[in-house]
């Protein structure tokens, strides 16, 4: 199963990026082969609809689980329709989040925000 995590840096020992749509990279981790690779987020410089675009990238790569601290409504709609489950990340590194997820310790993300649209909270 492929797992995706939004990342600021290309290292599994760095923290999860707080933004989904505007994250610079996505870590893709295959829980069967234990292989990890990184994707550039094509949506990072989008004028609008970044969440939709980022969710599209995730869906196109056959990801089944996304781990993120939050996610916008439009992105959630794409992910849900594409049958990608979104899990709430815990503070810590990507590696710790993957371990927690594989131990079924991450809850599903249940709330989706209406988007910041130029008013990104820092």
């Amino acid at each position, binding site marked *: 199963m492929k797992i995706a995590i939004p990342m600021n840096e290309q290292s599994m020992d760095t923290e999860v990026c707080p933004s989904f749509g505007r994250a610079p990279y996505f870590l893709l981790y295959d829980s069967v082969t234990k292989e990890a690779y990184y994707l550039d987020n094509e949506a990072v410089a989008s004028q*609008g609809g970044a969440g939709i675009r980022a969710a*599209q990238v995730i869906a196109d790569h056959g990801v089944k689980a996304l781990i993120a601290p939050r996610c916008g409504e439009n992105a959630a709609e794409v992910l849900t329709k594409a049958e990608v489950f979104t899990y709430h990340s815990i503070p810590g590194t990507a590696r710790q989040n993957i371990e927690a997820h594989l131990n079924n310790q991450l809850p599903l993300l249940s709330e989706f925000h209406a988007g910041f649209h130029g008013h990104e909270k820092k």
Partner: protein
Amino acid sequence: MLSGKGGTGKTLVSVNFAAAAEAAVYLDCDVEEPNGHLFFKPEITSEELVSAKIPLIDYDRCNGCRTCVDFCKFNALAFIKNKPVLFKDICHSCGGCVLFCPQKAISEEEKNVGMIQSGTSGQVRVHTGFLNTGEASGIPIIKELLKKSAGETALPIFIDCPPGNACSVMESIKDADYCVLVAEPTVFGVHNLKMVCDLAETFHKPYGVVLNKCLEDENPAEEFCKEHHATILGRIPFDSKLGSISSNARIAVRENDRYRELFSELLHTIIEEANHEAVAHPQR
């Protein structure tokens, strides 16, 4: 009337110019936050809805080729389970997906995006565009607003633009003969003034600058104009009386001789500049 940032005095200047001209047309193209009507309090004569076209996908014809999704630069189309899915609120009504669909599976439907209210205040014809909250683009409303003054040759037309230098501003100045840039005396103001100077130059529009909120101290916007040989049309003082009149949604020109004189003189300068430009550069 345009400015790089909000709150520099576009509406103050536009409204008072229109009032100083007495018989005029005032178009409020700042459709996300139109406020000229608050000053004019026009007697409303008509209201009309404005719609934009959004794609309507015929899923029986769609073969899932993804051309439309790949074309959309606004990310309004997602591709899920081999079919395009539209996000209406993100769509900018460019019509590209309709043109590029090889299966002719996309047509267009109308979607209401706002309205235009028209009325009169004294001899000023006031047209105000209102964009519905949450809509991506005010352009369809601005296009319709500009049509309201099309063919108007006898009266001066004052276009109150949205702030900034994005598409909606480009649309608003498209048919303008002259651009008045309103600037405030701050370093931040200069940064934004430069943005709109660049925009006016890109569109080959003659322009001049009105320095608003002028104090006795040095004025970074004035220095910028001198350095870049931008015409200074005039100065409006930082004046608590003018501020008080405006904050009570009243029109300074209509109630105070001093301000009527100030704005009339400024308007006279602008009309002379605009006429001069029309003679000197007829290709514009």
